[in-house]
Structures are given as C-alpha cells and as structure tokens.
C-alpha cells in the first residue's frame, strides 16, 4: 500500500516563508471562490429536491443543491474515522516518524475520496436530489438515469474542489480550509438572521432588524412578536462572550529549558481543552437514535414512539428528541400538544445526555487526538523543557500533568455541554444552532491567535524557528 499512499495528489507546499500579506490573499481568494460556488446550482437538478443533511448544515458547511452540496462532510468524516482507528492502534502506523505521517496523510486523502463517493451516492440514489425531467428530455432523450449520474458526478467534483481548496488554505493561507468554510457558513447564517426581510412564520420578516422596523412601523405588539428575537440576540452575544472568555481561561504549567539558561515557557491547559468536537459527536449520536426510531416507524414498529413526517410525536422517541429551539419547549407560548411534565422530562434528558455525553466524549477525544498527559509529557520531554523544581523525567511530567488535564477536560466538556444546550433552549440569531455558533467562535478565536503569531514572525524573522517553522 505504501507507494500508492505516498503518491496521493497534494497541493504543492510553499518553499520557504510565505509573507503574511500573501497568506491573506490566498485565504480571501479561496473564500470568494467558495461563496461563488455555493451559489452555483447543480446542473440538471429538479425543483423538488430536499436537503438530507439539513440539520447538520451549520457544521458541514456547503450549500444545499449547489455543486458544493457535500461541504466539508467527506473531509471531516474521513478524518474522524481515521483518528478513532489510529487512536485505538488499529492502523499500525507510527505517526511519530515522518514515514508514518506520510502514510497517515495518504490514507486520509484516500479515505476522503472514498467518502466523497459514499456521501454523494445516497443523495442521488435515495431520491433527495432529483433529476430534472425537462433536461433529460431535451438532452438525453428522456433518460433520467443519465441526468442522475451527471448530478452524482458534479457532487463528486464539488467534493474534490472543497478538498483541494482546503489544502490550499492549509498550506498557503491562514488557518485551515475546514475552519474557514464552517465560519463562512455560520457567519452567512448570522447575517441572514439579522437582515433577512422575507416573512416566513407570520406577517413580519424573519431577520432581526427588518422585523424590528416592520413591527414598530405597523404598531404591533412588540412583546408578542419580538420577545423571542430579543432572547436570541442576548443568547448569541452571551455565547460569543463566554466562549472567548473560556478560550482564554487556562492553567499554565511553567517550563524551563534544561540547557538553554533563561529560556522559559508555559504549557497552557485550556478550559475548552478538547474543543467543541465532542458536542458534535453527541449530537450525531442523538440524530442517529432519532433516525433509528424513524426507520422503525416507517416499517410499522411504533413501540418506541410515532413520527409525523420527521418529527417524533409520542413515546420514548419524543422525550429523547433534542430540543432545537424555544418553540420546542416554551409551553406558555404555543400549544405543544404535550403535558408540561413530558416537556420538562424531554428537557432534562437532553441536558443530561449532553452534559454526561460531553464529558465522556471529551475524555475519549483527548486520548484519541494525542492531547492526554502521556502524549503531552513526551512532547515536552522531547523539546528539552522541564518543570522547574522537578526531575527531568517523562513519568514525573506525566504524573504532574495528570493532576490537571483529565479534570480540566471533564470540566470543559460539561461546560460546553451546558452552553450548547442553553443556546438551543433559548435560540440564537439565524438558523445556525448552538453547536454551530460555539464551533465558529472557537475557530475565530484560534484564527486570531494564529494571526497574532504570524505578525510576530513578520516583525522578528528569527522567531520563526521558535514556532517550529522553516
């Protein structure tokens, strides 16, 4: 397998240092191209297609029905599968040496290509993206299968473009393409949520500002039509502030270099150590459970609860369904068709699943992603640093880190779980969901840190070696 994995196509890496201005140019170019592509509709698509990935849009980026319909789904799925397999040592690849890393990257690329095909196929075969009968008639003598194949082909090419653009950003730009596309999608959702002037649920626009003006101009009751929007605005601002605060909250472990006198440093153990990824895993688990219930319902087994369309209406499936917006639980606003205790039970289960699941997955994730005490201890040891006042020894380091990392991980996991559930209970601006918003703020904060580092490197070129580049 090795020759094949090593020969996987890659975007040419830059030779030497890329100036920050050029990095910014590459990033902006990719971003503009990405936005343009989200607006190009797949050729031959019928108007009655539906978005199968609708509930994951905020996380998967892309745009429904466009040639980048798959978004970053294939990249993220392939990467998570590979990280889990590697974390469990099932691959037999040693990622500590360059040869193993080349193999790992090759395998990741191969898996992304496989995932592009695997994720494009159900969209066409499952009838979610339907071929246009007119185009089939005028171009291919009425063969719907040919048009379906063309749609499939466009989805694959779109997936490939996203994959390549991600690599361009990672190598030539600022941050990573995956992060950039998530942020782009959620930001678009936020702007939409603020400015959209189309009326959907009632007589007034759905966007925050148009709605405010329309209600005032009309002289309608602000409390009745605007209270949820105010709540969403407060939640959004609150989440933004809290995540930025939590990102900068850290325990710093002091380090000193063994041979270079005066070279001191700190290893930060951040509160949101495991990032927001564990939340996505819990949400995906919940979604799979709901899909299982829906599947049973569709084949006529309803002891777990009945579904109407894609919404559970009673039984275990109802109380275990996640709450996505205030309309799912604020029983004093609308008639939910359920007694209050059932709604409260559903809220409680959602909270417990997210908090407990968040903590467990965070611990699991830290181990998988190589952020646990033993990995970090090895890294610090290899860099020649040690904790002042302690023997320079990997085991000593590990025991010291063990005092902090597992605890911080659990506290961080629980905190992010509570935050994510709260954001969904209270609703946020635009249809981006609590998890999407959390992810975006977290990515933007890290991007800001990276840009700050870049600027230091531009000002003091000798610092580049400190950052481990060139």
């Amino acid at each position: 397998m090795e020759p094949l994995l090593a020969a996987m196509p890659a975007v040419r890496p830059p030779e030497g240092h890329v100036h920050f201005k050029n990095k910014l140019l590459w990033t902006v170019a990719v971003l503009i191209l990405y936005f343009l592509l989200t607006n190009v509709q797949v050729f031959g698509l019928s108007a009655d297609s539906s978005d199968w990935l609708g509930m994951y849009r905020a996380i998967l980026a892309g745009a429904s029905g466009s040639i980048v319909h798959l978004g970053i789904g294939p990249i993220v799925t392939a990467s998570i599968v590979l990280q889990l397999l590697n974390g469990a040592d099932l691959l037999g690849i040693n990622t500590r040496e360059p040869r193993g890393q080349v193999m790992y990257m090759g395998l990741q690329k191969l898996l992304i290509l496989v995932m592009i095909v695997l994720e494009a196929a159900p969209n066409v075969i499952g009838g979610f993206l339907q071929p246009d009968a007119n185009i089939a008639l005028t171009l291919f003598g009425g063969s719907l299968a040919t048009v379906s194949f063309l749609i499939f082909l466009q989805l694959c090419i779109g997936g490939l473009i996203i994959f390549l653009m991600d690599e361009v950003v990672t190598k030539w730009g600022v941050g990573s393409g995956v992060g950039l596309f998530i942020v782009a999608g959620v930001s678009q959702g936020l702007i939409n949520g603020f400015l959209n002037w189309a009326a959907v649920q009632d007589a007034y626009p759905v966007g925050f500002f148009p709605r405010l003006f329309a209600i005032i101009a009309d002289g309608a009751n602000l409390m009745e039509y605007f209270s949820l929007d105010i709540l969403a605005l407060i939640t959004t601002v609150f989440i933004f502030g809290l995540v930025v605060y939590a990102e900068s909250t850290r325990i710093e472990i002091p380090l000193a270099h063994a041979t270079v006198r005066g070279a001191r440093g700190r290893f930060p153990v951040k509160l949101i150590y495991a990032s927001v990824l564990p939340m996505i895993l819990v949400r995906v688990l919940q979604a799979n459970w709901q899909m299982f219930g829906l599947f049973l319902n569709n084949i006529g087994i309803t002891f777990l609860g009945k579904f109407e369309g894609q919404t559970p209406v009673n039984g275990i499936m109802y109380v275990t369904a996640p709450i996505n917006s205030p309309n799912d639980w604020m029983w004093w606003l609308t008639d939910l068709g359920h007694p209050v205790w059932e709604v409260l039970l559903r809220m409680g289960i959602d909270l417990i699943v997210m908090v407990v699941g968040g903590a467990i997955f965070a611990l699991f994730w830290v181990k998988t992603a190589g952020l646990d005490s033993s990995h970090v201890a090895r890294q610090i040891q290899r860099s020649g640093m040690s904790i002042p006042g302690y023997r320079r020894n990997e085991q000593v380091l590990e025991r010291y880190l063990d005092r902090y990392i597992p605890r911080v991980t659990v506290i961080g996991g629980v905190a992010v779980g509570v935050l994510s559930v709260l954001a969904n209970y209270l609703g946020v601006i635009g249809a981006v969901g609590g998890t999407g918003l959390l992810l975006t703020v977290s990515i933007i904060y890290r991007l800001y840190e990276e840009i700050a580092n870049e600027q230091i490197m531009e000002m003091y070129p000798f610092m580049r070696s400190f950052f481990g580049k060139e």
Partner: protein
Amino acid sequence: MSKTNIIGMAVKNKGGGMVSSAGLVTYYDSEDKRSLHISPKLVLVFAAAIGIIIAVLNHIF
C-alpha cells in the same frame, strides 16, 4: 506578547508537526517527494472553471 508565551507556543508545535483545525481534522507537515504536486493556482483556476461551466449550462437550459 512576552517572550515566555512565545516559547510556550514553540513547545506545542514541536510535536511532530501536527496541526489540527478546531480539533476536527489532523494534518501532518511531512510530504513525500513521490506525491503528485498540484500548483495552488491551478486549484483555484480549476474550481473557477468548473463553477463557470456549470453556471453557463444552467443558464442555457
């Protein structure tokens, strides 16, 4: 930014050249000379060309 912080960052980055974006995807810097190298400009041109071709097709039919 103070000197201490900078060195703190260096420690983090020395771990085998692993970069992770929001904890979602893992990248390693290591590249093999055998791999097929594509120029970044070509990627952007290719993406734009595909977009334009499909947009034109949509417009015609």
